């Protein structure tokens, strides 16, 4: 799968499109399962991406706070 090249934004956009398609019932039953599977994969991808970004940001913040308190 192309997940290596996938960005969060692209994944989220695709997810939004799928949700919309399913929402207004423009997805044929024939490919519904496929679409839901893809959505699950994208959600998983986005959540991982968010979690990893969050933890990275938190690490930076912790570092900054340490600097701030020591720098005073």
């Amino acid at each position, binding site marked *: 799968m192309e997940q290596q090249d996938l960005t969060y934004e692209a994944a*989220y956009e695709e*997810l*939004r499109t*799928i*949700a919309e398609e*399913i*929402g207004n*019932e423009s*997805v044929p*039953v024939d490919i*519904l399962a496929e*679409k*839901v599977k893809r*959505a699950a994969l994208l*959600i998983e991808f*986005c*959540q991982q991406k*968010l979690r990893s*970004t*969050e933890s990275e*940001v938190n690490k930076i*913040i912790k570092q*900054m706070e340490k600097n*701030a308190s020591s*720098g*005073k």
Partner: protein
Amino acid sequence: MSATPYIKLSDLSARIQQAIASAFAGQSYWVVADVTNYSFYQQRGYHYFDLVEKQDHAGDIIAKVAAVAWGTGANKIKDFERITGQLFKNGINVLVKVAVNYHQVYGLQITLLDIDANFTIGLLEQQKQEILNRLLAENPDFITRVGDRYLTRNNQLPLKPVLQQIAVVTSSNSAGYQDFIHTLHNNRFGYRFVVDNYFTVVQGEVNAEQVQQRFIDIFNSGKPYDAVVLIRGGGAQTDFLIFDTYRLGRTVARFPIPVITGIGHQKNETIVDMMAHTPTKTPTKAAEYIIAHNKAFEDGMVAMQQLILIRSQQLFSAHFQALSAIHTRIVNTSRDMLSTQKDVLAYYNQRMINTAREVLSNRQRALIGLSGQLLSRPQILVANKRNELSNQVANIRSFSRNYFQHKRMGIEHHDTVFKLVSPANILKRGFALVYHKGHITTNAVNIEPGSDISILLSDTALNATVTAKNKRNGTAGPDI
């Protein structure tokens, strides 16, 4: 030790006192002078100040006497302030009534007895105003006046976010300079500064040119100074006059690096202060200002950092929420979709069941209807035909009855006619037939009196001879 004769200082001062008393006792004078070095001791109600007289234009002091006002004089000052709305303060030019006295300890002193409120504007102030007007008039490019403020090139310069490279113009031994450096370097935030000193004499109006030179030096150094700090070197109150000079005012006003002043006076604002980027009251205040400025920058950055942290956390939570919402939406909608489809299929299933049966039963009904028609109609048809037949029979019967009747009537008519015209019937009604020479005659031309004729009646034949022959005329006789 020489035996030079001497007197005690008290003897001398007593003689000075005597001489002054003899010359001035009971006398008072109206004097025009500038007030300077003024201070007021609230508790005792004493005003101490110097009265000075300056040379015109140059501004050099040519006379100066210490003065005091108390009692009546102090009250007069209060009246003066009340009447003019002008504080009794440094720099004002006044017309005062004074008495001259001498004190053996305090020396020569003049006592203010009265002050002319009408003589309001002090000469110093007038001079200062003249210099300001000159600055405005001669430097329209970089000095303008808006309201009671002066806009100069210098005070319009943007201040860098951090002031770290600083040039200080002051005198090396001044307490003010020490205060400034101490405050700057010992700041509690750990900020470091690079301070270059440009020492000079900063007192005495005559030194204005020297100070100006230091500014030129700063400019020529080519160093990227963030600010120039101008600090007074100490000395008496009159030392401020250097800061009211045209030269220095102009220098500061047009200087391309922001100038911060810390001249250290409390009671009036010098021309330099007006022209500078940021005037502060004291050297310490100038340092504090710089530190506070840098602190504001750091605080701004820290606030931004805080904002970034909060924003990114908000962003994460918004994204997590959005993902979770999409997740829920996909789950719900796909389930909805499947259940809707299921219902629709069930509906079609039921509909097929119902309609297929309906179709068949409708067909059955139609067929039965048609069959019924087919069963009854032929009999009706036959019965109608049979009726038609009997009608024809009846027709034939009635038509033939009429037929015979008409025929019979025709025959009977003829019968009647013939009966009427038959000769036998005519004779019965009294008519007679006349025979002459064996033939029936209807014409009497050939019969003459004497001719024999036979007369035939209905049941009798008479033979007769004619006796007369008369021509019948008109209507006489019986009608035929």
